[in-house]
């Protein structure tokens, strides 16, 4: 694409009150075009009632080469899930 063109991440809300869900991305030179492109690509089958577009470079992500340091230490610590005690029957489903 030509310079000036940007990538935007698209989030769709299905109904008022529900969380916005990431659905993909679009190209767009500015906010207006990004929003219209998102509308045309991601809501043409009634997928949502509201849309967010966020410049992809505004999203801060964990660098791929640091992913091990960020996430691997949690792998062998299953005890962090509160599943190691018995729940009395009278509590029921929780």
């Amino acid at each position, binding site marked *: *694409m030509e310079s000036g063109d940007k990538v935007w991440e698209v989030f769709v809300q299905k109904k008022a009150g529900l969380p916005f869900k990431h659905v993909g991305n679009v190209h767009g030179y500015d906010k207006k*075009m990004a929003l219209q492109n998102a509308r045309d690509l991601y809501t043409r089958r009634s997928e949502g009632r509201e849309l967010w577009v966020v410049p992809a470079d505004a999203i801060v992500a964990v660098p791929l080469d640091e992913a091990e340091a960020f996430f691997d230490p949690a792998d062998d610590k299953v005890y962090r899930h509160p599943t190691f005690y018995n729940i009395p029957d009278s509590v029921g489903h929780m």
Partner: protein
Amino acid sequence: MKITIENKEAHFLVRIADTSVILGQRLAEMCSKGPMLEEDIALSNFGLDLFGRAEEMYKIISNLDGAKFTPDDYVFRRNEREYYNLKLVEQPNEDFAWVIARQFLHDIYAREIFTQLSNASNPDLAGLSQKVLKEIRYSLMHSKDWMNRLGLGTDESNVRTQKALDHLMKYVDEMFAFDELDKTYLADPEKLKTTWFKEVDEVLLESNLKRNPFPPLTMRDFRDGFHSEHMGHLLSIMQFLPRAYPDAKW
């Protein structure tokens, strides 16, 4: 099969239905040829909106006229001189500026037409008009934005858009050469004309584009089934399959 349209209201409405289907076909031709993926899909979707709009119009036309023909009959089994679309919408997709300028000039016209028809005494027509106005408002938002972008973009985009406008404007006069049918079925034809010119001029002004004068033309009116040289080619592609294979189902 000879397709006939006897009812006066049906004869008036078929102009609008034909305008929708022919512009839809021009946009369908853009499928896979858009300037970028997002715009490609947008244009195809506007085309689909226009086909849907036309189909519902042909159903209303058919009901007014004795339910003798289906929407497919109207679209695929009429010849050039039996089509009554605006010449504006049959103009080719020379480049993206043509596609956008044509759409922009059409969208303001369509919005005014369906605004006036949304109070029609025919309840099917009034209901359909209210529904399609939402589609048209979005399409106009899109085409207006692109007029701004192309007009104010680069020297090249401005020159190309002006060139497209200079060509397309030749097909505008006939839009407002109202006949008895227009005057019978449109609530206020003169308002259609004044609103159209006012809004087009506003957008052209803010987009650094203009409406240039052109020499007088001797084209005959779309209301009598006359077309520019592009129409026959468009129909030959659009109608090829059902004419070659009349029993084909899809």
